[in-house]
């Protein structure tokens, strides 16, 4: 009798245990991370990366929020969420918005310093996976708030047919701006209805391309202290004079950014400059019309010159201590070689992870897609995308207006530059 009772009890307990199993699994094992990223088109690499991550980490589920239309929209959504305590667990702010976001959230204790987590992985892990130059992109006020996920610097896209028919050599893209303008002028002369070069800082949706023109000449937008504009120097003067010369010498017309990409894709522009993240998009737009080629961004000052780095970093904004470890695993995976391979192959971005360039990850792909190499070849030229602080977007609009006026010939380049510097200084104080 007693034995039977025990068996019965054991059976009951087992049954109860079996019934409770799923509850335990979801309660303990399954952690759901709430993730927000910007730019809906990025879903095509965020989703496959999340799937790969979940395969490797079955106890974590990634739930994406509706992606924000742009980095600025995402920034705004995050600030609002901070107020209502509805921040996602992990998010991917643009490099230029990261400092302001990190400072605002740090003040409220809503962002995690990744420094200790990275230290726990050990110095070997750090050195194997990341270059200090890349890590610097995610640092704010000396703390590693973001782990760089996507990175890009502007490259040249050109139409080799127009170049060849204008008497240029498509296999030797100019490495100086004088060369670019001369080639543009020849294309314009050969095809009067086309533009030779288009450098659309008049309509680009951020000041990234304008910063590139200053950075390549060895200039910086801000003083080392970061509290005043510094682009009124010789590098800035050279940059703004180049901007005007694209119009007067290389046949550039002042049209919208998308209009430029469309016109380039139909063979109506010889050379444009844009993000390598658009490589897949522009290749798609061109279709088979001509064999699209890319080249690194010409750099005038070989010593101090560089290119501003666009892209985004992963930050952890969860307030739930239980989720932190899971968040870190996801962030670490995203910046790891497997995830980078997925992101790079689908866009043209630079890998932020050193190991990703190895043969087993991207090696073969780079051989098959030489157009993606232009960005990789200038990776060691990466400079931070400088940020003017809280008034950044406003300063960009003001600068764009003055740049447009200069390019149209309404005001002389140097007068325009002086005005830009003065108004930037004023808006930075405001």
């Amino acid at each position, binding site marked *: 009798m007693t034995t039977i009772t025990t068996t019965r009890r054991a059976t009951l307990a087992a049954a109860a245990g079996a019934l409770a199993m799923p509850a335990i699994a979801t309660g303990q094992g399954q952690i759901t991370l709430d993730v927000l990223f910007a730019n809906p088109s990025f879903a095509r690499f965020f989703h496959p990366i999340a799937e790969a991550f979940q395969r490797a980490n079955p106890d974590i589920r990634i739930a994406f929020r509706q992606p924000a239309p742009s980095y600025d929209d995402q920034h705004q959504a995050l*600030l609002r969420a901070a107020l209502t305590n509805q921040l996602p667990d992990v998010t991917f702010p643009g490099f230029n918005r990261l400092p302001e976001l990190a400072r605002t959230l740090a003040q409220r204790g809503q962002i995690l310093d990744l420094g200790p987590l990275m230290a726990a992985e050990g110095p070997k892990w750090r050195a194997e996976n990341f270059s200090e130059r890349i890590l610097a992109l995610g640092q704010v006020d000396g703390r590693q708030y973001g782990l760089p996920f996507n990175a890009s610097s502007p490259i040249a896209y050109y139409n080799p047919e127009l170049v060849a028919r204008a008497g240029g050599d498509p296999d030797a893209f100019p490495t100086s701006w004088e060369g670019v303008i001369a080639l543009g002028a020849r294309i314009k002369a050969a095809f009067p209805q086309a533009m030779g070069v288009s450098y659309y800082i008049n309509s680009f949706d951020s000041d990234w391309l304008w910063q590139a023109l200053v950075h390549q000449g060895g200039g910086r937008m801000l003083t080392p202290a970061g509290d005043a504009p510094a682009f009124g120097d010789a590098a800035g003067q050279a940059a703004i004079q180049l901007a005007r010369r694209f119009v007067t010498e290389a046949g550039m017309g002042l*049209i919208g950014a998308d209009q430029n990409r*469309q016109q380039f894709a139909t063979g109506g522009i010889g050379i444009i400059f844009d993000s390598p993240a658009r490589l897949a998009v522009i290749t798609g737009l061109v279709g088979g019309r001509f064999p699209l080629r890319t080249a690194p961004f010409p750099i005038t000052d070989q010593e101090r010159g560089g290119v501003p780095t666009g892209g985004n970093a992963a930050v952890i904004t969860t307030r739930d201590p239980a989720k932190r470890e899971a968040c870190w695993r996801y962030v670490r995976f995203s910046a790891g070689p497997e995830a980078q391979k997925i992101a790079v192959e689908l866009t043209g971005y630079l890998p932020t992870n050193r190991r990703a360039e190895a043969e087993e990850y991207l090696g073969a792909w780079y051989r098959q897609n030489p157009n993606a190499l232009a960005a990789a070849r200038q990776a060691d030229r990466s400079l931070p995308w400088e940020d003017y602080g809280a008034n950044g977007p406003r300063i960009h609009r003001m600068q764009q*207006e003055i740049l447009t006026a200069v390019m149209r010939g309404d005001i002389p380049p140097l007068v325009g530059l002086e005005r830009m510097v003065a108004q930037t200084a004023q808006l930075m104080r405001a």
Partner: protein
Amino acid sequence: MTSPQARREALAGTLFALPALALMLALLIAPLAALILLSLTDYRLGAVALRFVGFAHYAELFGDEVFRRALRNTLLYVALVLPGAVFGGLGLALLLRARRRSRPFYEVAYFLPVTATLVAMATVWQFMLHPALGPVSALLRGLGLGHVDLLNDPELALLTLALIGLWQLLGFNMVLFLAGLSAIPRELYEAAALDGARSGIDRFLRVTWPMLGPTTMFVTITSTITAFKVFDTVVVLTRGGPMGATETLLYVLYLEGFQYFRTGYAAAMTVVLLGFLVLLSLLQARTIERRVHYA
């Protein structure tokens, strides 16, 4: 003295009105009060603290070159769109009323822009107006007008947006006028004919136009408000450029509030915009109402 009966009725009435009143308070009055309060502070989105600044934002507003330019652009836009939207809508309705079999076709054709989502249509416009690839530019070149860039020339961009705004508004106003026309009794025309109004112009001036008074008033006020609130075309087609030529009030407001995060300043701007709309509507209602004949 009120009788207990009347008092009970009054109480019941109040109780019945209460839910609506509460909703009105929560959805209309309270946000407006919050808006006005915010406009007196230096609040920035995401900030932890805020400070009262009194009317400083309002003072800044009228010295702000960007705001003044946006105000000028908006008024110009309204001035460009409004006459076309009202008289164009009326003209279309008058023309269509006489059609018998082709009327549904025209109605649908003119109403299509109203149903089309502008953001989607803007992509089409962007292509149509592309200076090198677009058919409109090709047409203008064919007409011997040379190289005209409708969206990127600061002198033309606002006019272009106004034409697109008109295209969008015309069909809607036409339908309103058609409804107004169908409400005019036949007998009035017969009586007018007996009294010697023989020509179409006479009939229009003596019967149609006066009888359309309420419709015209409604169309004018709604068109003004719609034109004042121009935003979507600006965002999708020009983003306020080139060189601020198409920065309108609502767009600048959006920039201040949602791009620059100066919530307090944006709130002050909203209050001013609201004031403008109320004033304009009142003014129009007053002047037109005096001449409107409600049948």
